[in-house]
């Protein structure tokens, strides 16, 4: 401490001592944030998202920026020039992959994502472009569907819409049809922008959001249910909401007819386990309504449940959850991505085959 003895007035001397301490604490705090930021580069390093000028998602990531995280799973990669999680931009993709944080796949190495594995498996036969973005539930991807088809209208043949839940309400579908699904803005206050740009502060803010402060409240020390994107989804829907399914799938069927693009809904339910070691999935009327509406409106519905059961029984892998947390809870892991990619590739090849055969039949009819 600098010498305060030269200050004769004891009150002023005391104030000066306190002021010196406050400055010292502030400076130490600032240095600590710098050190913490450096340390966080090896734990959670995600850039700050920005507005999407093309308007086909709420936001995108800065072009070419790298990311790394071990907060849930161990994931790393580099965003492409369009700001999506692909090694590079695919100019003329014939398959678009739209979805939530599961498809954004920031929880696995970039090469393990559904889109990357699909591209490997297709080997040039098809080109899959991943447009997955965190927080983009099935409602948001449905809302942005026309825009995405328009952007890639020259090449796109299939659009895969990912979902991890099958419940919906009339209000959800109203929002899709009216383009009023809640928007995630990339505009932040200057303070929040600063917090987001400093890794050491950003991780503290993230922990605040996911409940660190709640731990110190009396209700906070009970085990919480994990939910993706901050919401919990029920397996049951009320009778008054059942018409919503028909409206949403009617909307999708219209798009399919207007554009000629085939839509595939890909559903990956999360697993639970019973005491005997069996894998279970939630059952309810939401699933039945979803599957029935898809069939009625001729939209392909790919349910991963059976593939996940097979993978669990034969290979002893679980599709959701990581070595950093609880199995069956959280995002798709590398095994889940691979199983999903294999199934989707198989489904698309079957559709290709069916189209070829129907094409041949049509030619034969013309020749006849």
């Amino acid at each position, binding site marked *: 401490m600098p010498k305060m003895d030269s200050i004769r007035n004891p009150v002023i001397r005391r104030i000066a001592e306190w002021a010196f301490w406050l400055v010292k604490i502030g400076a130490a705090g600032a240095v600590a944030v710098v050190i913490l930021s450096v340390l966080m580069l090896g734990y959670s390093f995600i850039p700050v998202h920005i507005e999407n000028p093309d308007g086909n998602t709420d936001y995108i990531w800065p072009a070419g920026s790298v990311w790394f995280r071990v907060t849930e799973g161990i994931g790393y990669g580099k965003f492409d020039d369009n700001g999506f999680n692909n090694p590079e931009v695919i100019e003329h993709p014939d398959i678009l992959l739209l979805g939530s944080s599961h498809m954004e796949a920031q929880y696995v190495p970039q090469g393990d994502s559904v889109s990357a594995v699909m591209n490997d498996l297709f080997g040039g036969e098809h080109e899959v472009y991943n447009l997955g973005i965190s927080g983009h539930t099935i409602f948001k991807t449905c809302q942005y569907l026309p825009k995405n088809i328009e952007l890639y209208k020259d090449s796109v043949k299939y659009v895969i819409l990912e979902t991890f839940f099958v419940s919906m309400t009339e209000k959800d579908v109203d929002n899709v049809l009216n383009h009023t699904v809640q928007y995630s803005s990339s505009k932040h206050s200057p303070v929040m922008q600063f917090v987001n740009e400093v890794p050491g502060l950003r991780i503290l803010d993230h922990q605040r959001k996911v409940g660190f402060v709640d731990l110190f409240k009396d209700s906070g020390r009970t085990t919480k249910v994990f939910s993706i994107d901050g919401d919990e989804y029920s397996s049951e829907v009320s009778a008054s909401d059942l018409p919503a399914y028909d409206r949403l799938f009617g909307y999708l069927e219209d798009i399919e007819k207007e554009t000629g693009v085939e839509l595939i809904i890909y559903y990956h339910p999360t697993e639970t386990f019973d005491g005997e*070691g069996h894998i279970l999935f939630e059952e309810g009327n939401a699933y039945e309504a979803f599957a029935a509406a898809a069939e009625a409106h001729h939209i392909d519905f790919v349910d991963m449940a059976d593939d996940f059961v097979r993978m669990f029984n034969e290979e002893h*892998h679980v599709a959701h959850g990581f070595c950093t947390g609880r*199995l069956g809870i959280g995002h798709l892991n590398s095994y889940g991505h691979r199983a999903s990619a294999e199934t989707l590739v198989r489904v698309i090849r079957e559709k290709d085959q069916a189209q070829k055969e129907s094409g041949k039949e049509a030619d034969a009819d013309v020749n006849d």
Partner: protein
Amino acid sequence: MSMISFKLMGLLGAVFCLLYIYDRLRIDDRLRHRLNNWTLIAASLVFVAYANLLSALVLTAVTVVTWYFAKNRKYWYIGVILSVLTLGVFKYTNFVVSSAMEVFGKTGTTLNILLPVGISFFTFSAVSYLVDVHRGELEARNLEDVAAYITFFPKLTSGPIQRSGDFFGQSDRRRQVGMQTFLPGVQIFVFGLFKKLVMADRLSVFVDQVYETPMIFSSFSIFLGVIAYSFQIYFDFSGYSDMAIGAAKMLGYDLPVNFNLPYLAHNVTELWKRWHITLSTWLMKYVYISLGGNRKGKARTYLNLVLTMVIGGIWHGANWTYIIWGFLHGIALAVHKAWMTLTGSNEKKHGIPANIISIAATFLFTTFCWIFFRAPSLHSAVTIIKRMFTFQTGVNQPYFWLFVTVAMYFAAMLPAVLRSRGRELKARKLNTSFVRAEYPVLDLSKFWNLVAFFVFCGLLIALAYTGGSPFIYGNY
């Protein structure tokens, strides 16, 4: 009121401020002593009453009974019986009734008696005080002193169990309460919080799943889960103890150290000198010695060891799993004692390989015993053991945080091991290791120490598991 809560921090802050003010008032030392005592008693009763009023009433009743029968030394044992009976009624009635119903083939609802907060630990304090007064090691105190000792809130819910003489020795003298107690106390508290929120709670995620659904995991994953529990319970309980020690330190009291790198123990005897030290000391002083200790022949010594550990097991909870856990430790202590007597190996010096083997063997034995401690039932424990030893296929889960935690444990342990090397060379007995854990308390008036402390706090927040997991010893 949980040890991890804003309310506790508020209470701690208020008590600290009051003690700080008393310390600076120009008043008679006796008056200051009384003000300190009553402030602590009031705060402790608020701490307990916040959970439920019954707890505060039981605590008050046990305190008054202890004071009364210690004062009337002739009937001291009635005080002990009443305290232990109170514990028994609240802790074991449900178990006895449900076991009796099972034996007689009856069905129906059992009594659901609520366990008063901290009863297991304040009963220890009460018994310790009564026995010490009876043995003439201590003069009987007035109600105010006895209440301050038994109810002292930092140690109330899960220890460390402080000897009455130790507490009175500190409360009788003029203690300075200020930055010199606050800053080290905060650092020890945060150190404990880190152990709890970052290490123990992260491990709890994996451990809980392994014990809930062992059938989905491979033998290797179950083995990792069982190992993970060894570390989880250590970080959970020692973290709590650190927080209690830190909180008491802020108020000018030194609570005894409860853990001293237990997984460095070379044998079970040493383990119990390093694990939950205050409980094992209490059991040795008030149970083992009361049973006759080693004064009644070899066979009786071994029996006393087993009985003491079974009582220690039952103290943890009314469940066969705890009884087996205590029994296994008792047998191991007896076998070790017999081995030492037969071979005289406590006089020998051992090389590094022998040390490593004995540490690993002790750790594996302890870990095996923890299966019974953690499993919700005997059936569940047997399932875990069977699955672990029969090379089952299943999901492999190399849990990331287990490896991180073990790495952090070794990194934190290394300085203590290196510091003690010189001392260890002088060790004459195998069961006396000279490795001593020390709290990393820094002089926060120095700038870089302040930076290091802030970085540590930042890491605590950044790495904390926010899913919530209660203290393991909160149940006992």
